[in-house]
Structures are given as C-alpha cells and as structure tokens.
C-alpha cells in the first residue's frame, strides 16, 4: 500500500475548488447578508485552493515519491479509503446537491455538511503531509473552516 503526498494535496485542492463553486452558485440564488457572506466564503475557499496548489508545487522530488505503508495498519487503511473517495465523496459535484435544495435553510445545512467533510478530511490527512510548517498551515485552514461552520450555523439560527 503506497501513498503520494501530491495526491493527498490534489484532493484538498479539488475540495476547495468545489467549495468555492458551491458558494458562488449558492450566492446567485441568495440576497442580502446571505449572498454577501457566501461570496466571502467562496473567496476564502479560493485562498485555500491556492495554498494547497502552492504546497503541491513546493514538494521536492523526494516528497513526491510514493510512501509505503503497512497495509494492516488502521491509519493506513483509513488513508487509503480517504484517497479512494470511500469516506468523503469528494468526487461528487456539490452543485448537484445544491440543485435539490428548496430553501436557504436547506442550502445552509448542506454547506455545514460540506464544511464538516472538509474538516474531517484535513484532520485525517494532516499528519501525512511532509513538513511541519505545512502541517501548521493546514491547522490554520482547519480553524478557518470551523469558523465557516460557526458563521453558517449563526445564519441558520437567524432563520428560525
């Protein structure tokens, strides 16, 4: 069983790109404060995507080599399932789910779910990313994603 740091970061980049697409599409159907914060969240996801892209670009040839892991190790099995998309459905298009939402409340609940998926992925793969500095930067992104959950939850509470 082997893992490639580039692949782990590529998935992160992909998730952020999808997140930004999701918020921009959601903003088109929203108005007022909801529209504004969704556009802000889209911009933050753009920044995260750029960060992960730069991190990938900065990988040394050695860091791009596959890392062999014990196939019986629980953490390795989990990481493999993550990369295969068995745990987080990162290959699914969030816009398909957005189309099924019939209210701002449903959009906000979906957004919270997507943010939780992203946090879960970063928490799981963080330790497999080479470089202490990069791991600390991922920690900061996790905190920002948590802030998104807080913002979305606050907006959801305003509706009730």
């Amino acid at each position, binding site marked *: 069983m082997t893992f490639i740091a580039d692949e782990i970061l590529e998935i992160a980049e992909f998730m952020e790109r999808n997140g930004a697409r999701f918020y921009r599409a959601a903003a088109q159907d929203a108005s007022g404060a909801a529209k504004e914060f969704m556009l802000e969240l889209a911009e933050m996801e753009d920044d995260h995507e750029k960060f992960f892209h730069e991190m990938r670009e900065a990988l040394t040839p050695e860091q791009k080599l596959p890392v062999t892991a014990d196939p019986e190790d629980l953490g390795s099995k989990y990481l493999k399932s993550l990369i295969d998309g068995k745990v*987080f459905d990162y290959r699914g298009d969030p816009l398909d789910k957005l189309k099924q939402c019939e209210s701002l409340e449903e959009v906000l609940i979906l957004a919270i779910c997507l943010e939780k998926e992203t946090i*879960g992925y970063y928490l799981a793969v963080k330790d497999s990313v080479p470089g202490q500095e990069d791991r600390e930067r991922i920690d900061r992104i996790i905190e920002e994603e948590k802030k998104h959950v807080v913002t979305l939850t606050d907006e959801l509470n305003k509706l009730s």
Partner: protein
Amino acid sequence: MKFNADEMFEMAEQIERNGAAFYKKAAESVEGNAEQLFLDLAAKEEDHEKTFAAMRGELTEAERFSSTRDPDNEAAMFLQHAVDGEVFDADPAGDLSGQETVEQILRYALGREKDTIVFFQSMKEMVPKQSGKEKLDGIIAQEVGHIVDIITQLKELK
C-alpha cells in the same frame, strides 16, 4: 461565549450514548454480518461512553469549570455550537424509520462516525492537558476503526 471541560465531556458521553442507541436500533432491522457489526459497534460506543464518564469524573474542580471566553477563538466557537447541538445530529436513532436498506444505514453510520471524529479531534485541542488527551487519541483511533469496518461491510454488499 462560555463553556467548560465538564460540558465537553458530557457532550462526548451523549454522542456515544446516541451512537449506541443508533446501532442497536439499526441492528433490529437487518440480519447476518450487518446485524453483528451494528451490535459490535453499539457495544464499543457504550465502552466509550463509560470512558468519557470516567474522564469527566477525574476532572479537578478547577478543570471542570474552567471556561473558554475568547470570542475570537474559532475552535471554541465551533465546539460551543456543537455542544449546543447545532452542528451534529442530536438524535441519529430517531432518524431511522426501520425501512432503510443496509446500504442506507451503513452510509448514515459512516456520516455519524465522521462527525464524531471531527468533534473529538476538536475537543482534544480544548481539553485541559492532564485530562486524558491520550485516551481521546485512543478513542479517535477506534472511531477510525469503525469507519474502516463500515466501509468493508459496504464493499461486501457489492
């Protein structure tokens, strides 16, 4: 903004209690390997609940009521919303109608386990240092094991 270690552990106990209730109810509507898996997972969640209850009992008075009040601390705000039941599903067993397929239940269980891990990982950053971070790591690893078991069961359905 105000919550303390005691509330966090109480929330963790509740999550585990809800998890056990969910798996027991899920086991009632399936049979074979899936039934055995759900009963095993229910027993494990009950063990975790006991572990959290013990950890909560070991908190000192100072730790128990030490509050986080920093309104700019995202981790604290995230946990506050979680403790308030706004981020994670408070009653997963109640969401089961008994009419779901094994695959639907397994996918729902997967989501619940992922949420649990996110909560415990976030909680780990906030609990007092002496209050069992290593035990939390052990529980998180076991929840990861549940996800691996659920995915294995999903693969067997195909």
